[in-house]
């Protein structure tokens, strides 16, 4: 028996991924360890009352509450009457990890306006914020965030000293909450990370990044857009104050909502206007290893186009958030406003400067402003705040802007649920995003996977043994054969009342850059869109065929060994009801009877608002680079320059 177990262990060790993580902190070893890695579900984009916009629209919960919620406890939602919450929310299935990422900008101002002991409490701005919250929110939020030359309010004093000082308390409390709820015991039940959101928004163009720290060693103060108004400056600050500080500090930055960046999220020019070079690209990809492809304020995968009907998914029609209420300003988004075209553009940049600046893995998250990480279920969606619906007066029957959505989840493949293991997954991009469901997706690339791999009980072993997982570079080519990709997806099992919808199909999206032109093609590799699946809009019952598991081993039929390429998989569920359909059914809206849909419930009868959704998952890409010198040497654990 011992011999058999030993053989199994040796076999597993041989098949295990080469790049393990290094421990950077003191903690008990996890009781459970998965050499072939497990998917851990979480949310890396969470706001609490420490964020000015969340506080301004009625949120009273703190980072502690956010972590309580992520672990499965109920917390209060606005409105608050005499200090007590009128609503509550609770996850049906707890998360494995979460990151509270309150806005670093206005962190001190938010405290000053609420604490009568702090200088500035009686200032005009703070009085206005307390007296007329929505006016305060409308004036203050855009004053800082949407300004090309942001500056602090006069009550912050010279050099913003008072506000910097006031920001220390919430920054400490954020770290303390992360520490309190991080499970350092051998059960490794829940992981937290210290984080914040750098809220760059020049002229209303969203260039936000979420910063996630590997362990408890973090920046003394979070970098702000007010003091550091460019992404280049942010990377420099993170390098100087964290990555290169000589300690254990390590961090990544996760861009989000390139869909409303007006093309500024992924620039190929420096702040001084000159084109980036290899060092710039390296610096960027060292810190930005992931991108948030979907969240509350829209999906950023791909622009609407005739060749991929599934790009018509949770899109918003404006290119800047501040244009949302002015349809006359809506226009087509500039290049690199979406993740797919940015990934393709990265290949072109790699050909130009020798390094791919946009080597981005993929995750999803919520961007909740209610302190509710992972609150992604369509059937119970109460909105996420974020200034889209002013919740301080109550959550309306139609709870959100009809073009927004509950957001998604980040999934990390790791050996155990600890900070180092999960952070290593983020660093090596072995991650994927979902629009909410807990689909389990594996994606491997290599040169000699067997066609029978899907039938093998050793799918993952083979995947690691003979190739690389999502987020990696294909190993050097051994023959003239095209690369082989093995993709497997398991349906979200549901549970705890959460829905479970069958899978419909898997696609592989190929991106390449040739002759200065970025190209893309979508291949159907498993399942079929013609499966007759549908949903009854009155009851939201789904029907038709679908799969519990889909799997394929796929060879690129158009492979050109001279052309760099990137491949990612998209896994799509059968149609199900979108959140607005649940809300409209709950309120018994009948579009033939106008008396049933007053106020915002009128959205229920707007034919422009989709009634159904095809939930999905997107894997991180696998890259093919013909020139071995340009291949990623592997950011296996700690970023090295």
């Amino acid at each position, binding site marked *: 028996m011992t011999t058999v177990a030993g053989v199994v262990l040796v076999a597993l060790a041989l098949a295990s991924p080469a790049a393990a993580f290094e421990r950077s902190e003191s903690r008990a070893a996890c009781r459970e360890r998965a050499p072939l890695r497990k998917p851990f579900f979480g949310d890396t984009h969470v706001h609490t009352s420490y964020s000015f916009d969340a506080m301004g629209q009625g949120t009273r919960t703190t980072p502690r509450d956010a972590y309580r919620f992520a672990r499965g406890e109920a917390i209060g939602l606005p409105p608050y009457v005499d200090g007590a919450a009128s609503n509550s929310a609770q996850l049906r299935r707890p998360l494995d990890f979460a990151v509270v990422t309150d806005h670093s900008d206005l962190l001190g101002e938010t405290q000053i306006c609420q604490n009568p002991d702090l200088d500035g409490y009686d200032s005009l701005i703070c009085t206005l914020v307390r007296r007329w919250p929505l006016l305060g929110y409308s004036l203050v939020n855009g004053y800082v965030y949407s300004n090309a030359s942001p*500056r602090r309010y006069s009550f912050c004093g010279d050099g913003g000293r008072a506000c910097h000082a006031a920001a220390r308390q919430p920054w400490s409390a954020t770290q303390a909450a992360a520490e309190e709820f991080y499970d350092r015991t051998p059960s490794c039940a829940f992981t937290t990370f210290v984080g914040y959101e750098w809220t760059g928004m020049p002229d209303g163009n969203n260039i936000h990044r979420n910063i996630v720290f590997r362990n408890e060693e973090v920046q003394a103060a979070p970098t702000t857009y007010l003091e550091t108004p460019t992404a280049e400056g942010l990377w420099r600050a993170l390098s100087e104050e964290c990555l290169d500080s000589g300690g254990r500090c390590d961090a990544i930055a996760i861009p989000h909502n390139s869909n409303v960046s007006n093309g500024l999220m992924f620039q190929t020019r420096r702040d001084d206007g000159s084109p980036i070079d290899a060092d710039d690209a390296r610096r960027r990809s060292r810190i930005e290893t992931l991108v948030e492809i979907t969240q509350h304020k829209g999906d950023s995968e791909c622009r609407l186009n005739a060749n991929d009907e599934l790009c018509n998914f949770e899109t918003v029609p404006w290119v800047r958030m501040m244009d949302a*209420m002015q349809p006359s300003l809506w226009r087509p988004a500039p290049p690199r406003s979406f993740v797919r075209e940015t990934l393709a553009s990265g290949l072109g940049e790699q050909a130009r400067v020798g390094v791919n600046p946009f080597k981005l893995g993929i995750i999803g998250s919520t961007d909740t402003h209610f302190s509710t990480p992972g609150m992604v279920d369509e059937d119970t969606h109460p909105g996420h705040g974020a200034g889209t619906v002013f919740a301080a007066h109550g959550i309306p029957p139609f709870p959100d802007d009809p073009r927004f959505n509950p957001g998604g989840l980040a999934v990390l493949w790791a050996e155990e649920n600890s900070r180092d293991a999960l952070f290593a997954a983020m660093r090596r991009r072995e991650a994927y995003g979902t629009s909410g469901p807990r689909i389990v997706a594996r994606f491997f690339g290599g040169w000699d996977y067997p066609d029978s791999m899907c039938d093998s009980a050793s799918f993952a072993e083979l995947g690691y043994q003979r190739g690389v997982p999502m987020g990696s570079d294909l190993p050097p080519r051994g023959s003239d054969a095209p690369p082989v990709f093995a993709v497997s997806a398991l349906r979200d099992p549901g549970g705890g009342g959460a829905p479970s919808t069958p899978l419909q199909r898997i696609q592989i999206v190929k991106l390449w850059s040739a002759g200065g032109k970025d190209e893309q093609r979508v291949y159907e590799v498993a399942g079929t869109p013609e499966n007759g699946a549908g949903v009854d809009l009155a009851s939201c019952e789904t029907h038709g065929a679908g799969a519990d598991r889909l799997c394929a081993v796929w060879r690129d039929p158009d492979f050109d060994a001279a052309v760099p390429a990137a491949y990612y998989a998209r896994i799509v569920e059968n149609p199900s009801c979108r959140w607005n359909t649940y809300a409209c059914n709950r309120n018994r809206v009948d579009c033939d009877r106008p008396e049933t849909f007053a106020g915002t419930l009128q959205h229920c009868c707007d034919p422009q608002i989709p009634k159904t959704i095809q939930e999905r998952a997107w894997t991180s890409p696998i890259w093919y680079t013909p020139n071995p010198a340009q291949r990623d040497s592997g950011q296996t654990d700690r970023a090295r320059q």
Partner: protein
Amino acid sequence: MANRDSRPEPGIGWLLWAGLALLLPLPLLVFDGMVPLVRIVLLATVTAAVAIREGAAGPVQMILVMFVAHAMIYAAVLALAARLASRALRRWSGPRLRRIVFAGILAAAVLASITTPYATPFAPAPRSSLLGVLS
């Protein structure tokens, strides 16, 4: 020269205008409010104070323009309405009419103070009484 009978009663027009400005709920576009003109003037004043004190960056200028535009348009519309009403009331001219109009406004003010006829999106509560919108 206009016929004396066709002229509105002096002072009644102003009294009516003041009453309407103080009490009549008017739609506040974009923010879905229903508030009297005095409230809009108050909002414009506060926003102007922010613009002067802190600068009109970001949305400050836009919101200020919106409030001022609302205030000017409604002031003009209420003035026209008050003038038309005072013309209609001219046959009952005299101190008695002024007393009746004043009493009517007072009664409406009392009613507006003990109920919540105003939708106040900017305030801590979604609906307010007259005292609420003036505070």
